[in-house]
């Protein structure tokens, strides 16, 4: 599905991501944990092909195809999508109009009716914003989805509601969850968890519970020397 091979990234001349290796197979859920400013969101934007994120080394392979130099929309056509942490407000553009343009799949959700005739993200609450993002992504019918800090600014009820929606509508899709709080892990139970610090993946493990417990107790610094580091077995 997605293979990031020894990728380094610069933004405005500054090294942000350093020799990242990540492989997500069909139907797997991976979580990427890390403190603020560790480079997690940069990985999202780079993977999606945003122009300011310059890949200076390595490559991104999606379903066997090198997509390192592909435009954003070309990646989306191949089946990639992302739920952003801070999607912009778009005055004048109603959610219904956008969905009309992009939808490959019909979505019938009662809660959606309240948002359809509103301008995208204008005056949306935190929960509405995330819901709108998820609906847009579902409508694209992707095979791989990145969720950037889905749990940020959401109460437990909303988080539970949205993760149920993800489970029902994006079942069997490959998923990369980006989070620094980790609350979402217990709802979506990742197959593999990674920790990113200072633009590097310093730890990968199947035991997300243990990793998260370590982080909760000792903080992210502990991950640098943890015995689980690079242990994916």
């Amino acid at each position, binding site marked *: 599905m997605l293979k990031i091979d020894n990728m380094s990234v610069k933004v405005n001349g500054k090294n942000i991501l350093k020799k990242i290796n990540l492989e997500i197979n069909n139907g797997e859920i991976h979580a990427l944990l890390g403190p603020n400013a560790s480079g997690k969101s940069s990985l999202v934007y780079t993977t999606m092909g945003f*122009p300011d994120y310059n890949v200076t080394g390595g490559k991104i392979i999606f379903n066997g195809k090198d997509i390192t130099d592909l435009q954003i*929309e070309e990646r989306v056509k191949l089946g990639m*999508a992302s739920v*952003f942490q801070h999607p912009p407000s*778009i*005055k*004048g*553009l109603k959610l219904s109009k956008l969905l009309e343009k992009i939808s490959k799949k019909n979505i019938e959700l009662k809660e959606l009716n309240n948002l359809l005739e509103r301008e995208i993200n204008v005056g949306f609450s935190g929960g509405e914003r995330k819901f709108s993002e998820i609906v*847009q992504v579902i409508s*694209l019918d992707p095979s791989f989805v990145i969720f950037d800090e889905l749990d940020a600014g959401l109460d437990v009820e909303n988080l539970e509601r949205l993760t149920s929606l993800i489970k029902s509508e994006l079942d069997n899709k490959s998923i990369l969850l980006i989070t620094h709080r980790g609350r979402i892990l217990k709802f979506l139970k990742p197959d593999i968890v990674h920790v990113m610090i200072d633009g590097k993946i310093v730890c990968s493990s199947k035991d997300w519970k243990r990793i998260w417990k370590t982080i909760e107790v000792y903080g992210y610094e502990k991950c640098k020397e943890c015995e689980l580091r690079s242990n994916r077995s």
Partner: protein
Amino acid sequence: MKNVKNANYVQIDHEIQISGEKDVIILSSPEAYKRFRWSREYFKKKPEEGYFIWVKNSINHPLITCISISSKNISQNPINLVIIEKDVKAEIYSICNAVKKNLCGNHVGYSKVIAKENSRLEMRHFHRWGKEDTVNSNLEFFLKKGAELSHNYKCLEVPMKLKMENNTYLEESSSVNFVITVWAKDGEVEMHDSIFLNGRESNGISRVRMIGDKKSRINAYSKIIANDAGTGHLDCMGLLISESSSINAIPELVNRNKDASLTHEASVGKISEEILNYLRSRGLTEDQAIDLIVSGFLGEEEPIAVEGSIVSSKLYM
């Protein structure tokens, strides 16, 4: 004529055709000037062409006027007068256009609208011109006590030169909601839009939406003058989608009453990269993203009801 056969007043170059209505008097302006002596105080000068609409009772469908240029080098000078009686509700769709792009026409229009006490008028005004036309449009609205006006002006194809002046005078408890939308391409646009709050609890809102496309220049002067304790808001937004365009938005608030409240917001800029990239991340190409943003910016397309069926306003433009 194809798309305006149901209009109440049609003027092609200088030829007119009028279709009457129950509860409404529709005449040419010269005829009204002759027939109703009282109307003379409202006409700026003796009209040579234009329409007169006097709505005496509420009507449940829109009245439609259409003034078109269809021949070369035509110069039109319509003087229009609209009177809405007390407590009456009315809707008017007004279309002014050139049927071809290269007619070198000149359209100088002057319209006066009197909305009497507690009347409600919804007016939609569509302009569409050729690249070699020049247009000067002057509108005056007089809103009596408790009257409400919603005026939506849209010009998505501007002439070589468009000059527009709108003045709205509000008496006590009357209100106006103006939306002006202009998409300028290969043309110059100058708009002066003033709302005078002359009565207490009057309320004026003006929203100006401008798109600066190739080789265009827009100067938009929007003003609210509070002479009494009313409220007013100006909202000017400009979107530049070409390097060879410019937009000057000049909002002005003049408050002469300590109990009046006036506000404004204005922004002019290009489409943000952040929004473009976001829409591209939904699978749209850059051009598709720009089209979607622009169409959102221009607002919904208003449907027009003619003989019970709904047709797109685009047919009229």
